């Protein structure tokens, strides 16, 4: 008989699951602020579509492939359609299996939504939904199995607390592939394409940080030491990343930018995601200060290239996740995590385990996403027409606008009972 359910653990994990789901909507707000006003709703809707699609694919198939059995490359089909997922804990867990499934499902959802950042303002909504459904199973579930579900990465010792492999590197390097396959926006490199609402960006970043306490703090899978450590580190690392960002902004432009600050929050949260429960709070602060550097310069460099990876998912998630995964290999401390030491504490092998994950994950995410999108593209167009792109995705795909004045809008009455609705002219 496996350990009994712990009600304290269960209560925290219920709350943490809800916090992580909220992050996808916070991401929608963050992304919506970063695009032009004519694409606000479409950008947000990509995140909402990710919730709808990934929740379903996860329950039907993804969860089973990620968490059924100990296969090296991929899980089994034993939990397809949630069969055998009930109130009993999974393995050594102390929370209901069903809740574990839902918690992991919210990770799959936000990862799918993250990739939208690479293709906003020009990808067809329908094509994105098809891509999201396939990606959530063929890429996310596979990476989640490797890192969390007993696959070969976890088996050879890679430490990944809350998703540096499947979520952060998975989304970041997939985003690069998606941007390359879908192609740049029509006006990219010719016109200034500016964020239309910096306040959305800040509020979105703040809500993401808030939700991240559930994301990292819940990845101890209970109200335990690892969760507390990750929770506290989630406070410290982004704060330190913010300070680094402020300093770099000041040195380079003499002004501390608000959108830069919002970006720094995301980068800090991503940096600590893989390392949360494994490194001391002191090293978490170092990670924030130092780890922000490659991400900052990645974001400065990318717009000078022809690659329209629009919202910098690669720099903010891919590079930050890569840095965090490697950092564990240096400074993990047995005295804090009870599992392993890093290079600085005497175990060089741990660093090589981390480095292996940091090489293989980006390669798989990039190649698999590239092929997947090429296949989807062979069946249906991935991009909106130039005309539609100029008009804006909101009107084209949703028939709504984010900032509608109502001037000049003529009410269309339903055909049949239209007469009854028109006031009698007398």
């Amino acid at each position, binding site marked *: 008989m496996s350990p009994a359910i712990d009600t304290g653990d269960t209560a925290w994990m219920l709350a943490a699951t809800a916090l992580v789901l909220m992050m996808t909507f916070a991401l929608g707000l963050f992304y919506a602020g970063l695009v032009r006003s004519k694409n606000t709703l479409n950008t947000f809707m990509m995140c909402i579509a990710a919730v709808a699609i990934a929740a379903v694919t996860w329950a039907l198939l993804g969860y089973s492939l990620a968490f059924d059995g100990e296969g090296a490359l991929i899980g089994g089909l034993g939990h397809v359609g949630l069969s055998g997922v009930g109130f009993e804990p999974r393995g050594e867990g102390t929370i209901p299996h069903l809740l574990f499934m839902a918690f992991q499902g919210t990770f799959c959802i936000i990862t799918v939504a993250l990739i939208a950042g690479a293709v906003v303002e020009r990808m067809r909504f329908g094509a994105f939904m098809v891509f999201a459904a396939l990606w959530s199973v063929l890429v996310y579930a596979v990476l989640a199995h490797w890192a969390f579900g007993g696959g070969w990465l976890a088996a050879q010792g890679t430490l990944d607390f809350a998703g540096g492999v499947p979520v952060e590197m998975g989304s970041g390097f997939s985003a690069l592939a998606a941007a390359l396959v879908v192609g740049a926006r029509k006006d990219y490199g010719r*016109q200034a394409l500016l964020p239309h609402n910096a306040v959305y960006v800040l509020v979105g970043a703040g809500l993401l940080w808030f939700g991240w306490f559930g994301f990292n703090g819940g990845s101890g899978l209970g109200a335990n030491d690892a969760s507390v450590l990750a929770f506290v580190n989630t406070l410290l690392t982004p704060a330190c990343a913010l300070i680094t960002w402020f300093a770099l902004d000041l040195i380079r432009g003499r002004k501390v930018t608000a959108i830069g600050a919002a970006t720094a929050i995301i980068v800090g949260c991503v940096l600590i995601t893989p390392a949360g429960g494994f490194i001391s709070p002191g090293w978490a602060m170092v990670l924030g200060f130092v780890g922000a550097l490659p991400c900052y310069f990645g974001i400065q460099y990318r717009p000078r290239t022809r690659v329209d990876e629009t919202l910098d998912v690669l720099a903010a998630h891919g590079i930050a996740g890569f840095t965090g995964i490697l950092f564990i290999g240096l400074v993990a401390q047995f005295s804090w995590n009870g599992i392993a030491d890093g290079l600085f504490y005497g175990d060089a092998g741990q660093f090589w385990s981390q480095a292996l994950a940091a090489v293989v994950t980006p390669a798989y995410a990039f190649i698999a996403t590239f092929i997947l999108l090429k296949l989807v593209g062979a069946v249906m167009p991935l991009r909106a027409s130039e*005309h539609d792109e*100029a*008009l804006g995705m909101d*009107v084209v795909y949703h*028939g*709504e*606008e984010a900032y*509608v*004045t109502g*001037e*000049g*809008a*003529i*009410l*269309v009455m339903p055909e049949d009972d239209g007469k009854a609705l028109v006031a009698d002219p007398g």
Partner: protein
Amino acid sequence: LKLVIGIVRPEKANDVLEALYRAEVRGVSMSRVQGHGGELDRVETYRGTTVQMGLSEKVRFEVAVSDEFVQPTVDALCDGARTGEVGDGKIFVVPLEQAVRIRTGESAEAAVTPVAKR
């Protein structure tokens, strides 16, 4: 002395500015306006309320020019704003009674000639 008014698509505004710059037309005002031309109305739905958007967003350029600059300005507006679809906009050229440069009090042609030109 003429006032050239061009009403164009918002997404072509940057192209128009570029074309005007190339035509060495320097003094320009622009504003966001809403208007209706021959284009088909967009239909939008908000929670079951379906509306026909009779007005679409346009950008209105106003350029006051001396007579020999009228044609280059009109050409620039056409080149920059044309997509070939209904809804590209209109250009109106109207006579201008008077123009005054506020800083110097110069009037007429001198008021609409860029300082660097003299």
